[in-house]
């Protein structure tokens, strides 16, 4: 067993990571040890990353135990690079995390300065000045490379920077040299943030942690008004929204909801938020209060200005879309459905259930009109899969006289059929040969109406056809 990580006190005792546990115990018998848990570490870093999203939306993990914050365009909100660095460190200290931080023009320079230097802020373009005195350990190159460099008498990045890069690349490889140019700020690299940038984002910061959950809508409403105002200027409406609550103790709650059609309707969005908040398994908990409340529009689509009032039908459709959105927010999108017609003669595939929020309505003409004067030919309810039944028929290819379903015998009083429906052979994989179905409409003596079928043509397809109950009529 080896040591993975140490705290300050242990390092002061002269212990180092990588040492065997037995050695360490020999030196410090009172050592408190815990099993390393990489997954838990990563979860912690992800939680911290979420917490840091209150400083800038672009946050990336910097393994193994670093966070990379892209402060472009954010630093001035905190009063400059140095002030922002101090602010972040203070916030971390409140969460009982100590840390090292540096601000630089490139991610690699910032990492090297934070881990191996004393510089707090290296203004863009001046990284080289600050990075030159750093030890070559800042390259974080493989062990043999650093040994070789030290043997060659190269101890600082400045020493390396003065050599011809072609010779160094030939000797130590491409990767080490790229790292050097990046640390020196000669080449820039972008970070890959954990979450992509939202379409638009508004937030409210509180001087005192915000505790009153009942007044949360008073905060959210102006935020939504502001966000929809931004969308309106762009001629867009939002489809997916998120409210994020940054708690003082570092926890971040996020509440996401979607609309079926692009929307800028403040009241409708607030209603969706309310529904979503009500349906949470563990309700929104302010704990010691929220520092920041943020409202993001994650997805936006073009939404033209509409003149409500001129077109009544449109307004009505809009209200109904609102209702569908509310229900989808409350019960989940997979539970709010619409019926879509499919062009097929296979009764199993003739109708599909589709997400109502995604497809507000299907063209009414797509459903076949029933023949006037005919009784209903299709059942109101369909079993999927069809239910096996035991039947007794007069002739092998005639309708049943009675059948048994769920231990109850139904004596047939009226019958019509068969309606022969051949399977869609082109849909089936080779080998599994589907059988022709002969459908019958039956009515038992109590007046219950059933839709049953016999699977397989007698004698030509099967010797003992099986019967199934497929649907129930009203």
């Amino acid at each position, binding site marked *: 067993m080896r040591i993975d990580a140490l705290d300050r006190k242990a390092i002061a005792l002269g212990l180092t990571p990588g040492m065997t546990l037995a050695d360490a115990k020999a030196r410090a018998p009172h050592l408190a040890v815990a099993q390393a848990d990489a997954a838990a570490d990563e979860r912690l870093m992800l939680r911290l990353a979420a917490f840091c999203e209150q400083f800038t939306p672009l946050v990336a993990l910097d393994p193994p135990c670093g966070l990379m914050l892209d402060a472009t365009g954010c630093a001035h909100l905190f009063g400059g690079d140095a002030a922002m660095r101090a602010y972040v460190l203070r916030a971390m200290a409140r969460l009982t995390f100590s840390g090292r931080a540096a601000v630089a023009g490139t991610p690699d320079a910032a990492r090297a300065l934070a881990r191996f230097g004393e510089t707090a802020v290296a203004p863009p373009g001046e990284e080289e000045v600050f990075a030159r005195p750093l030890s070559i350990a800042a390259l974080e190159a493989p062990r043999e490379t650093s040994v070789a460099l030290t043997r060659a008498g190269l101890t600082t990045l400045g020493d390396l920077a003065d050599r011809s890069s072609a010779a160094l690349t030939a000797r130590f490889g491409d990767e080490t040299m790229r790292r050097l140019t990046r640390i020196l700020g000669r080449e820039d690299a972008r970070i890959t943030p954990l979450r992509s940038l939202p379409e638009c984002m508004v937030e409210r910061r509180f001087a005192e942690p915000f505790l009153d959950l009942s007044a949360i809508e008073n905060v959210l409403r102006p935020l939504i008004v502001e966000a929809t105002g931004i969308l309106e200027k762009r001629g867009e409406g939002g489809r997916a929204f998120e409210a994020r609550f940054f708690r003082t103790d570092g926890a971040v709650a996020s509440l996401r909801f979607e609309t079926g059609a692009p929307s800028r309707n403040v009241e409708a969005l607030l209603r969706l938020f309310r529904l979503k908040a009500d349906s949470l398994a563990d309700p929104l908990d302010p704990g010691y209060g929220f520092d920041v409340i943020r409202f993001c529009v994650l997805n936006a689509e073009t939404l033209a200005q509409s003149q409500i009032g001129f077109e009544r039908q449109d307004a009505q459709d809009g209200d*109904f879309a609102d209702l569908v959105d509310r229900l989808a927010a409350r019960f989940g999108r997979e539970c709010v*459905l*619409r019926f879509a017609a499919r062009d097929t003669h296979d009764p199993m595939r003739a109708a599909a*259930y589709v997400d109502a929020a995604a497809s507000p309505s299907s063209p009414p003409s797509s459903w076949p009109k029933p023949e006037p004067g005919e009784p209903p030919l*299709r*059942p109101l*309810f*369909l079993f*999927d899969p069809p239910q096996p039944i035991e039947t007794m028929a007069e002739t092998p290819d005639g309708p049943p006289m009675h059948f048994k379903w769920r231990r109850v015998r139904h004596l047939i009083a009226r019958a019509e059929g068969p309606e022969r429906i051949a399977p869609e052979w082109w849909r089936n994989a080779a080998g599994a040969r589907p059988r022709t179905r002969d459908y019958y409409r039956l009515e038992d003596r109590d007046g219950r109406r059933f839709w049953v079928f016999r699977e397989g043509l007698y004698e030509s397809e099967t010797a003992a056809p099986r019967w199934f109950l497929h*649907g129930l009529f009203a």
Partner: protein
Amino acid sequence: MTHPLASLRKSLACAHPAAASETIALGAPALDRRLGGGILRAALHEAYAGTAADAPAATGFALALARRAMAGKQKPLLWVRQEALSTEAGAPYPPGLADIDIDPAAVAFIRVRDAKEALQAGAEAGRCATVGATLIELFGAARAYDLTASRRLALAAAAAGAPIFIVRAGAAPAPSAAASRWLVRALPSRPRAANAPGSAAFAIFLLRQRGGAAGHAWRVEWNRDRGAFKDRTFDAPSLSRPVASLSVGGAPDEVAPQTAGRKFG
């Protein structure tokens, strides 16, 4: 100074505008006369399945009423259903809806886990004035559907001016704030040529009607082409069961809660 009674009448008239008494006619003159013009539009109505096996009939009857309510209005039907019902009695089949003259494109279908969710969804939908009618199907004892819940739905229906229908299978009729309560059973249809089953037919029993006569039984057929019910109560007795079999007392007893959930037939 106005008479106190007059001012009271006036305020009552404000609280219950004329629209509150608007009715949905069933389309069969004898029934509508008896019902006082039909069932109230802005109200809650209940349809109980006589036995669990009559669930499709009860739903079919409520759908037909909803179809009457939505006639001539370009408004959708909201259908809330407890998921357990779909394993028990099958899932709604849109071509079958078209066959009883309900446009499947005008239906929004909501699948929920339990009665509590069904009632929440139903109340949310029922409150919305753009919904033509709301249908809530509950399965089994559904303890969440109590007097308070039914009152809430009744208020929602009154506010939106559109009916809410509750369909219950495997439950005994219980007091509620519904304006009308029906017990529905399947009824043998009028045969077509070659003894083929005909249009949907129901044996209905009016258990309760607010401010009206109750305890009356009819046999009706749903005429899809006219979009109306047809009274078959006085048809030749050989075609249907006697009315006497629909006794009030007998009906709830037959619905034994423990067996209602499992058995059909």
